[in-house]
């Protein structure tokens, strides 16, 4: 029985040993890359745990199938020491994995919550059912569109005009709730030019699923001229 505990322990600890070496990143961290990396590790971790349980279950299912109608199980009883072992050892294995995951999470969470100093600030006010995007330094306002310069961290300050909404950019792995009466924030790091969906993920009534817009990542030069153009026109609402 003890041997089995050790083997089980090693199998469950394998992901921890495997991934404690994997680490990367200099300069400004990119939450999207961090998320993808941790997600990948996490999927391997939970798949392994699942396979151990499922494998043992399938083995028992086949091995202990009833052979005769009068056959009985129940000849196996744990000793008090065995019972302690089978409680504490699995508990410590699960706890070890928990602590490992909590530590990994702590790192990534800090990347998400600490906005880089050179971030470009955009303000978003959510309303039923759309996004009002403001560029506070330039005095520009647009609806359901957000132009951002490539290669610069973007900080979004969120608030809501009416009910609770949630601002989600699936491609950048960021999302945060927008509440009436307070300001929250998130940041993301668009490194390439392109278009991305921003959409609402907190149920807000009739047109909740139609509350979406586009994020357009353009080059620094294009962004500067976009700012100039809209400044002259006094906003593009």
């Amino acid at each position: 029985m003890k041997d089995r505990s050790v083997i089980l322990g090693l199998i469950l600890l394998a992901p921890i040993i495997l991934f404690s070496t994997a680490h990367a990143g200099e300069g400004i961290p990119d939450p999207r890359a961090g998320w993808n990396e941790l997600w990948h590790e996490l999927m391997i971790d939970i798949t392994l745990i699942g396979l151990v349980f499922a494998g043992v279950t399938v083995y028992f299912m086949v091995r202990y199938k009833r052979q005769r109608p009068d056959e009985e199980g129940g000849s196996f009883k744990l000793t008090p020491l065995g019972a302690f072992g089978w409680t504490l050892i699995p508990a410590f294995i699960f706890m070890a994995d928990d602590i490992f995951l909590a530590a990994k999470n702590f790192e990534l969470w800090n990347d998400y919550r600490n906005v880089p100093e050179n971030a470009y600030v955009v303000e978003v006010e959510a309303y039923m059912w759309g996004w009002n995007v403001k560029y506070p330094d330039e005095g520009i306002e647009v609806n359901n569109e957000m132009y951002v310069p490539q290669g610069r961290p973007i900080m979004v300050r969120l608030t809501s005009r009416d009910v609770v909404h949630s601002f989600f950019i699936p491609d950048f792995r960021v999302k945060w709730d927008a509440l009436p009466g307070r300001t929250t924030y998130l940041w993301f790091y668009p490194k390439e030019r392109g278009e991305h969906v921003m959409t609402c993920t907190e149920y807000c009534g009739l047109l909740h699923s139609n509350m979406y817009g586009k994020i357009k990542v353009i080059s620094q030069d294009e962004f500067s001229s976009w700012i100039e153009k809209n400044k002259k026109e006094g906003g593009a609402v």
Partner: protein
Amino acid sequence: MSVSVESLNYQSRFSLKEWIFTTDHKRIGVLYLIGSFAAFFLAGLMAMLMRTELSSIGPTITENPNTYNVWLYFHGAAMILGYQIPALTGFFANYYVPLMIGAKDVAFPRLNALSVWLFWMGIVLALLTFVIPDPPDIMWTGYPPYSTMTPGNTALYTFTVLLIGFSSIAGGVNFLTTIMYMRAPGVTWNKLNVFIWCILAAFIIQLIFVPVLGVAVTMLSLDKYLGTNFFNAAMGGDPLIYQNLFWFYSHPAVYVILLPAMGLIYEIIATFSRNSIFNYKGILYGGIWGVVLLGGIVWAHHLYIAGIPDWMALVHVFLTLLISVPVGLMMVGLVGTLYRGSIEYKTPMLYAIGFIFLFLIGGLTGIPNAMSAIYIHITETYWIPGHFHYVMAISVTTAIIGGTYYVFPKLTGRMYHEGLGKLGFFIFFIGVNITFFLTLLMGVKGMPRRYYDYPQFPELEGIQQITTYGSYLIFVSAVIILVSWIHGLVAGEKAPQNPWGSRSLEWTHAPSPPPPGNFPRKLELTEEWSPYNYGS
């Protein structure tokens, strides 16, 4: 209550008056069963409608998003409040607790009758959703300020929750007293069925936390109809207070549902493996009570991005991850009970084995949700319904359906058709895995939940369609299951007292079906007696 001549005619005469005024725990259980399965089929129908709507982009069967939102509200509220909690803490608790502990009835039979009728009032109130012109569209969570601003009827939600909440509190008082004081001589604490421990734990959670939900939903209606400002930010209130109160109850509520379901699976696995519970005390004190202790201090993992302080999120990350310890111990106990057993694959056992696999997926896909940074991307996407359908909706339904097959001979005095039962299981198992595994995948791709339409995600239309087909399989299986029960009820063979060869009191000492008072003879249990005393 003594066993009289009347008990001999217990099954043969049907009197509506007797059913309405009954205080017999088995009949009250059946009333819960009918109500909860009615809620299940109606809420399931809503799910079919929603899945059909989602099978293509743009309007499919309704052009009004509000209709979809009302379906979704009803689906969530009815499945949790009308089906799962009443089926487990109503039907199974009522039916099994007195029988398993060797009691004639519950401690307060009339309070028990009040419980079931409060529950039925709640069901009727919930059904008004389809009658009134302004049905609630606030999801089962009812977050303000939306719920206090919507033209939908928030009061209906408030009062449905309050009625079913009162029913639960009365049930909690009743079953705690029954389990503590009405065990037959010889049924000691450390010999109780695992299911009884789970019911005890579930009702302790209900008694502590239901009042909090009651307060929260009452404040909602006060805000909406009487002009208070608990949740109105413009007047100094805070919508986050509601979210905290709501999840302070509704996360533990997950365990109110999970624990009795686990308990049922333990009973089924022990019986069909003819085996004692693996590490009984470990899963009892580490598993069940671990869940109760941790369950109440992890609610903020529903609020990581809702505007709570960052440090609070980090504390709850760790606490929430720790839930894997007691739940993992309970899984070790389940799988361990198969070890050196003698396993027979009757329909209830297939469901129990199915539970292990479905719950594994459900439990493990919960780990990412506990991690605040990972949660940022997957929360409020299809990942979340994918996860909780596996861990709660589907696993627990597996336990409820498997448990119903298991209790069927005792409950009706007849056997169900084994072939139909197994057919239903396999279609069910395939259907749920198609539907909800794809739901998980769409979540990772960023598909938000509670969407009537998804023009911004055109690439997901194909997966959405297959998911819909999967859900039709679930519907087919539900019909087969229902047919197998009706067939068994009408044309099934007469059931013996103990068709499964179980050692638990309800099978060894009570006839099928048990008469009022349950046990024809006084129970005399030996030192060696235990509900899991196999192989001796």
